[in-house]
């Protein structure tokens, strides 16, 4: 049994595996399948300043080895999170990271500020990359100045671990990563979904109510891995890698490419046990390769 623990900011994670925001609810959804506290951390669905209904149905389409979604940040708002959801999840014996989204810098600041008071919320993940909202969302993640400004504003009010989640829909993701690192982000996570589209040729209409949506799943893995590798080579803060991870082998690719931890999203829908299987699989790999700690393989790509 190798030492699987890794550090992200001030968080000491028992292992480098967490679910990706928006694919895991808040944790209890998976209680029936395994002990959710086994995860390195839980990452919640996006939390915004106000209640949001999200986009209209239909919100998903299956695509080759992946899916498009346009959920659009449906959630009951930060106050509801604090009053109702937090009490229901704070018993978990692992870190809880809240994914924070909004349409305005003030909104992000409001949510982050309110969450800081919650003892069990040890980090937030600033979602500046949601492709599924009309205002804000991805726009913040596709320009260095905007990414920097929202990071800076949140950094001013939020003193725990601040992870910024990057958009892959950019020319140079390393540049954005450096911009948020410069403003004090403790870590970057990537990738959020790639903007995509699908059409019903019989009806001649888009298959999503929002026309475009975010692509995730195994299809995007090669792109995600490349971006994680680029970013890991560009910043000093730890990188959390995700995009299409479906098994331990995929996760290890991300670790080798330089990710300190990984998130697993869409694969939870196909195999609800995937997160624990990945934890076990990483452990087996480390044992087989005589590694005492997962840190030995982080960034260990021979390139």
């Amino acid at each position, binding site marked *: 049994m190798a030492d699987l623990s890794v550090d992200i900011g001030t968080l000491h994670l028992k292992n480098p595996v967490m679910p990706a925001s*928006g694919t895991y609810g808040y944790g209890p959804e998976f209680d029936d*399948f395994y002990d959710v506290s086994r995860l390195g951390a839980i990452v919640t669905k996006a939390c915004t300043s106000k209640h949001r209904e999200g986009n209209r149905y239909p*919100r998903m389409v299956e695509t080759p080895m992946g899916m498009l979604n346009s959920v659009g940040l449906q959630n009951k708002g930060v106050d509801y999170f604090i009053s109702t959801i937090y009490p229901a999840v704070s018993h978990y014996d692992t870190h809880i990271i809240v994914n924070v989204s909004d349409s305005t810098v003030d909104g992000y600041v409001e949510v982050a500020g309110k969450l800081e008071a919650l003892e069990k919320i040890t980090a937030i993940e600033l979602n500046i990359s949601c492709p599924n909202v009309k205002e804000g969302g991805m726009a913040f993640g596709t320009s260095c100045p905007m990414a920097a400004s929202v990071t800076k504003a949140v950094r001013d009010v939020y003193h725990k671990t601040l992870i910024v989640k990057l958009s892959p829909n950019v020319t140079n993701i390393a540049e954005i990563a450096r911009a948020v690192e410069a403003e004090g982000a403790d870590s970057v996570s990537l990738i959020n979904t790639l903007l995509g589209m699908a059409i019903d040729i019989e009806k001649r209409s888009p298959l999503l109510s929002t026309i475009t949506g975010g692509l995730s799943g195994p299809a995007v893995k090669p792109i995600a891995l490349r971006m994680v590798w680029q970013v890991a080579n560009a910043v000093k803060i730890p990188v959390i890698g995700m995009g299409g991870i479906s098994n331990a082998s995929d996760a290890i690719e991300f670790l080798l490419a330089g990710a300190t931890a990984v998130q697993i999203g869409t694969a939870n829908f196909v195999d609800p046990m995937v997160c624990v299987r990945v934890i076990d699989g990483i452990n087996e790999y480390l044992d087989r390769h005589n590694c005492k700690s997962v840190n030995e393989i982080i960034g260990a790509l021979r390139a």
Partner: protein
Amino acid sequence: MTKFIHDFKVLQNREVSKGYHVLVLQCLQQLPAIFPGQFAQLLVENSPSTYLRRPISIYDVDPVENTISLLVKVVGSGTAHISALQEGNTLNLVYPLGNSFSLPEGKKVLLVGGGVGIAPMLLLSKFIHSHGKEVSVLIGGRTSADIIEPDQYAKYATVGITTEDGSLGHKGLVTTHSYFDSVGKYSMIYACGPDPMMKAVAGIATRAGIPCEVSLENLMACGIGACLCCIAETTSGNKTTCVDGPVFNVKDLSGWDRSK
């Protein structure tokens, strides 16, 4: 209700009508309690164009044999692969998922199923019948080939049939069947099938002041409330059809023009 991930062994695969298969699946563990209207998320292996699981209603349950049955209509690659499973194959299910139909207050109820929408109605008939109620089942389809195993209901219900082409039962849409002539005698109406059919039934029920539950077949990714892809618009906001549904009382659904 606790959800499980279990492997099932295919005991039988009968093509009950062209393109409709009934699969009898034996659970390798002990089956949990399953309520009418609940569904399972099926893992479709070896289908390159099927990445996500597929939601399929529980058609029948046999606690003695520790089996469940599914009624599957082939509409695409996923259902084609499921329907091609052979005796002895293994199928992985996440189940039982979703809420279930509620027990009616009164004595007489009407169940309406259109096409493969009939799937949850068998278990529902049994369930309501076992509570001493009188059940009428109305099965509608385009042609006789879409009327699946009507005999199955005989023990629990009176069965009416409609087909659009008149090849079996009454000719016409399900809502033109005589059961609807004296609809007032039913204390509850349940419907599952194509949206237009359910909306028509919901309209009749609402106008007659009868509570009506429908089972929605929204597109699903997770099936367990984690992704928020499958939402239905309700009078109290967007609800998941996989956890808060698939069964909804039509009075709670927005945009179901119930007065028309």
